[in-house]
């Protein structure tokens, strides 16, 4: 599904965010991306939907050479991905309902379909009762769940979640992670960049660990900390 080959990314201001990163993620995988703050997790995700272009290296997503993709083809790529942005990126002038519906409208979906899918997605994240509110009228966690609903609504083949539970309480977090698991079981590839140790340690999935822009470990059933479950660190 995703194939990243010796990708480096140097931002215009000279920061080397990614340094010769190579990574393969298969169809239907569920991958955690962990690492310190500012280590390049978001940058890596951004490359996949071409918000940024790599300084060097090759990126293939679902058979598409993203690094070479022409500008006119970018919308089509993005419509087949679901992205939960770290800063939500909700449209302030649209209601919750409209924000979620927007992701479907851009795909040219029929309005009947929209009327059916949007309430379903809002229901999944527990926001049906806030559908007519604007993002500015929501709590942090509600905004985050709106962003998650928007990423889900199109049933994307690939779901990229950047710190999707940073503003959610543990029970909400559990619900959302279970939701992601269910989606993953239906065949969607899921990549989650997260700092939530409890989530990573409980779920025991593939963990890709970044450090200073480099992938340092890639474990099949990993913990948040290298080889250690949560309890151990806490007691240490």
């Amino acid at each position, binding site marked *: 599904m995703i194939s990243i080959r010796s990708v480096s990314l140097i931002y215009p201001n000279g920061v080397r965010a990614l340094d010769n990163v190579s990574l393969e993620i298969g169809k239907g995988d569920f991958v955690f991306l962990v690492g310190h703050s500012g280590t390049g997790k978001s940058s890596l995700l951004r490359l996949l*939907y071409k918000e940024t272009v790599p300084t060097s290296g090759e990126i293939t997503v679902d058979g598409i050479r993203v690094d070479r993709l022409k500008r006119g083809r970018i919308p089509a790529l*993005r419509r087949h*991905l679901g992205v939960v942005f770290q800063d939500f990126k909700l*449209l*302030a002038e649209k209601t919750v309902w409209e924000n979620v519906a*927007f992701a479907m409208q*851009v795909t040219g979906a*029929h309005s009947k379909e929209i009327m059916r899918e949007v309430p379903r997605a809002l229901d999944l994240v527990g926001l049906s009762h806030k559908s007519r509110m604007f993002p500015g009228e929501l709590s942090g966690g509600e905004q985050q769940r709106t962003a998650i609903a928007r990423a889900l609504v199109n049933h994307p083949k690939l779901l990229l979640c950047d710190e999707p539970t940073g503003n959610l309480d543990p029970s909400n977090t559990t619900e959302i992670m279970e939701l992601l698991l269910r989606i993953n079981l239906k065949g969607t590839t899921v990549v989650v960049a997260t700092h939530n140790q409890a989530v990573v340690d409980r779920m025991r999935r593939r963990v890709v660990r970044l450090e200073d822009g480099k992938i340092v470990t890639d474990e099949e059933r990993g913990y948040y900390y290298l080889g250690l479950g949560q309890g151990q660190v806490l007691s240490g």
Partner: protein
Amino acid sequence: MDWGKVKFFLGEVLRNFTRNAGMQATAIGTVAITIILLGAFLFVRATLAGLGSDILNQIEISVYFTNDATTAQEDALRSTLAHDPRVATVQFVPRKEGLAELRARTNGVIDTSLLTENPLPDKMRVRVHDPASVPNVAAKIRKMKGIGNVVYPQTVVERLLQLGGVLRRIGLVVIAVFLLVAGIIISNTIRLTVFARRREISIMQLVGATHMYIRAPFICEGLLDGLAGSLIAVAVLAGARYMLWPKLLLALPWVQLNASVVNGPVLVGQLLLVGGFIGVIASWISVGRHLRT
């Protein structure tokens, strides 16, 4: 046809319009004011042009026959002029009347009782349709038989024609400048309203909206801004026209102000067109600016 989509799109445009009411009002106000300026200028120009041609149309050629001119010669001139398409009116003034006229014109200063003989010849007054043809018509008359002197206010005609030409050229330049100015101001305004929503545009892109999809509502918004502004402008201009015109006629009763020189519906159409067109172009370009990611 997915009517839901159409309904959604229109709803979208309307929502954007009302949710940014303050910004839209500012944009519409600016468009209105710019178009009012443009319209007022076009109107004044048309009125002045009408006034100018009125003055020029009053210019006449005085044709004096020689003292020995025959009636046949006078008739020949009359029929020639009658067949000349450039000529508007011809009026014959016998020498007697000419003297009375001269007397009246000099306000009785000339003491006609002192005259033993009438020093004036017969005369014909000729008016043409187009003041520019005065010199040619005069030259043609001069070549005919029995004609003494052919007089017209040569310098006046020349100068008025010259002035008219210069003013016409200046007028065209000013119109061009005005259109440009209106265009720049309106497009600057709409560009700023788009700029204020640059974040929204970039988010839409990240969600996978095509350039066209993002542009469409903005363009409709630009169109609405332009049309609404122009409509307000037209209303204000029409109001001013019907309020001020009678006052102007009253203040300057002797000026042949001719309101009909301005073709109302055409002007209204032009102004609406200018407003809407600039609105569309401006939002098209401004959105494009923020799409380059």
